[in-house]
């Protein structure tokens, strides 16, 4: 028998809410196969199974808040698909003492059965579905009067008679809610300033010529190339690699860079590459690739999302000029990287101004106006441009 415990979710995180079990009691599970999902105030993560075998007990129900280290399930590694005879509830009460979940555990079947009555959006008949569709009415906006809240033909016809759905109320996902809370706090607490500078991005011609892969096989993105320059420029602009809280500016010796990442229908996450100051392009490319892998497999933990001192927000489409990102609190600045574009540029050849094809990128900086101003921001961005132009891609990749 192997105990499944709630692993550490990050240094400052002591508990999480079990939001979903991917396996049920009696299911076979492979080692490292996603077993359950846990939600913290930072992120929703899928937890891999620590062992291969058969899930014999689930000790923490969906919705339970569980302390890290607490037993949440038991896996029978002998691989026999027999289900434990003793009730999970009983087992948890006696065997998970100090590290017990904060709410009482329950067995797989829910102790108190709650049932929705007068639910919205329950469609059981294809005929009703078509009436709603033809009438332009979203099922989720209709309260059913049938058994179990089912929308009857009469309900549907009444709803259609009232006209097509103008508004649909959507519940926010956990991620969207977390993003919203953070952004609201940031906008309300920090007066945002913004500056943008167009810089030469010809160095990316070198990247393209040498290949978009590091020596150890990780993808080299525009973002990582420009971030290298941005991180190095921070050495000269210490007040931008800082946190501001309680009227106090704290400069950080280490540079930990967060990268904004969109999560489909779940808001935005900002995974952090810690201690990035000394990284070469190759190392940064590897570190961001690792974070992105964990993001894709929902394996990011709270530590991955904490401790940032500066943030980079990259263009996600080919024609984005710049964005005006909101500062990730309690940091003081966030760099916006526009799309790297081929543009006509004026150069002087033999005393004559001519138009050539060049590569440019607009860098922007959202900054906390209590700490920085437009002049300083523009100066920083110009410096990033210089360092970018001088980057020795050949030796760093």
């Amino acid at each position, binding site marked *: 028998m192997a105990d499944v415990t709630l692993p550490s979710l990050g240094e400052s995180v002591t508990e999480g809410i079990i939001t979903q079990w991917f396996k049920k009691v009696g299911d076979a599970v492979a080692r490292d196969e996603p077993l359950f999902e846990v939600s913290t105030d930072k992120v929703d993560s899928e937890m891999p199974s620590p062992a291969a075998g058969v899930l014999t007990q689930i000790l923490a129900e969906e919705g339970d808040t569980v302390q890290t280290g607490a037993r949440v399930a038991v896996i029978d590694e002998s691989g026999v698909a027999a289900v434990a*005879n003793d009730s999970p509830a009983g087992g948890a009460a006696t065997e998970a003492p100090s590290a017990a979940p904060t709410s009482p555990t329950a067995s797989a079947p829910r102790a108190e059965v709650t049932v929705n009555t007068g639910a919205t959006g329950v469609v059981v008949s294809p005929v009703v579905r078509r009436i709603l569709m033809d009438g332009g009415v979203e099922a989720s906006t209709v309260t059913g009067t049938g058994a179990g809240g089912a929308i009857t033909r009469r309900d549907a016809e009444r709803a259609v008679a009232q006209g097509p759905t103008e508004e649909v109320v959507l519940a926010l996902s956990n991620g969207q809610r977390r993003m919203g809370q953070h952004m609201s706090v940031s906008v309300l607490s920090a007066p945002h300033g913004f500056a943008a500078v167009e810089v030469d991005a010809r160095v990316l011609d070198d990247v393209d010529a040498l290949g978009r892969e590091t020596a150890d096989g990780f993808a080299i993105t525009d973002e990582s190339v420009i971030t290298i320059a941005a991180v190095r420029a921070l050495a000269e602009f210490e007040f931008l690699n800082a946190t501001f809280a309680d009227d106090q500016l704290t400069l950080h010796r280490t540079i930990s860079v967060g990268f904004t990442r969109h999560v489909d229908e779940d808001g935005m996450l900002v995974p952090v590459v810690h201690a990035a100051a000394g990284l070469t392009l190759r190392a940064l490319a590897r570190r961001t690739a690792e974070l992105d892998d964990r993001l894709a497999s929902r394996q990011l933990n709270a530590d991955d999302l904490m401790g940032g001192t500066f943030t980079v927000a990259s263009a996600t489409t080919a024609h984005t000029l710049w964005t005006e990102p909101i500062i990730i609190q309690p940091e003081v600045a966030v760099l916006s990287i526009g799309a790297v574009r081929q543009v006509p540029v004026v150069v002087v050849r033999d005393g004559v101004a001519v138009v050539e094809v060049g590569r440019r990128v607009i860098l922007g900086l959202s900054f906390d106006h209590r700490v920085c101003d437009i002049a300083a921001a523009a100066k920083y961005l110009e410096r990033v441009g210089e360092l970018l132009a001088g980057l020795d891609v050949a030796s760093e990749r």
Partner: protein
Amino acid sequence: MTVANEVQKFDVVIIGGGPGGYAAALYGAAAGLNIALIERDKVGGTCLHRGCVPAKEFLETAHVRRTLEHSADFGISTTGVKVDFAVSQARKNEIVDRLYKGVSGLLKGRKVTIFAGTARLDANQIVTVLDGADAGVVAEGTNVIIAAGSIPRTLPGFEVDAKYVLTSDEFLDLDKLPATAAVIGGGAIGCEFASMLADMGTKVTILEGLPSILAGCDSEVATVVQRAFKKRGIEIQTGVKITGHTPGKKGTAVNMEGAEDVNVEMVVLSVGRSPRTQGLLGEGTGVEINDRGFVVADGYMRTSNPHVFAVGDVVAGTPQLAHVAFAEAVVTIKTIIGEAVVPVDYDRVPWAIYSNPEVAFCGLTEAAAKERGYEVVVKKDPFGGNSRAQIIGDTEGVVKIIAEKRADGSAGQILGVHMAGPWVTEQLGAGYFAVNWEATAEEAAALIQPHPSLSETFGETLLALAGRGIHVG
């Protein structure tokens, strides 16, 4: 495997292994629940061993005989047709046994723990096996499902002796059929028995206390059956008040108030089924039982104790049908594991009576629709004009559809589909969908029925209901 008095814990303990109980066990086990099922006799319950399944085998025997009797119509002569009912009885037992083994195998395959014996539910979801091979076993369920089923009701003055007076339990064990019989109770079970007996050559009298047989059916459908029965020599006396019976040398006389005795070899009681709840509940279970002994449950099959559910014949106010029990079992398990579920809509479950002619229906009867305040549009189509019905030589019957009348007088949503006639139990599906999907006459009429088929009669009725028929006005 059991140690006396040691409490064995399960996610769900199910009392009774009939359709409701075994369906809950299989469906629950498929959902990963650890399940114990306690059965006093054999899994499969009344339906498989003493109800639907054996009765249908006998009715099929009657069908074969009827076919042979009419074979000359097809130019196939059969002489010396002999009936050895014991062979049919043995065949029935074989079928039942095969199905029994099937259910047992499924339960074993899903690792359901089966205890043999009669169960009693006590407080805190503790279930004790009182007798049988596993007497003394104590099982505790996080949740308990009562699926204890029902037993045939009897009448005062009619001691069941398996000789003169039989219920369905005894009737289905007969090796030899009587020359004369009285069937007391003209409901679904009574009509099936009467039909079968008549087709097998028994002189049958149906005695019904209500004004007509098949009281729950639409009256026009009941009339079709009544007419067909009378044509086959079944005597039907309705509105009777039976007082008892007087056994004689070669049979017994059924006594009635204000009517002549009916002298028969055998009396078959089919006057409904009582819940098997006597002795089922100990102290402090918190489970409410109504004055007729049925367990009270809500649409999610929850009793007044939130950890105790009830399914099947034992539930108050719901149709005593195996397929309803199956559906209730699914509702129960989904409720237990917290999945979204829509309760069974009891007004719209399918009904099937396997008499000759068969009856099948779903939704409201014309009378019930009017009682509920609907203005209705009704269309009927007899099977007489149906090509397939003529080919199989079985044209007796009708399809009747009841729809809500719209303000302009046209037929709107279909409220009920009622059928009597050849193979209607197999034809009801389309009507069942129409009623439960809340289709209108036009919506359902736009769909095609194959030709030639018995189901065209349903299609024709829909077309007529939608305003204009092809063959029917």
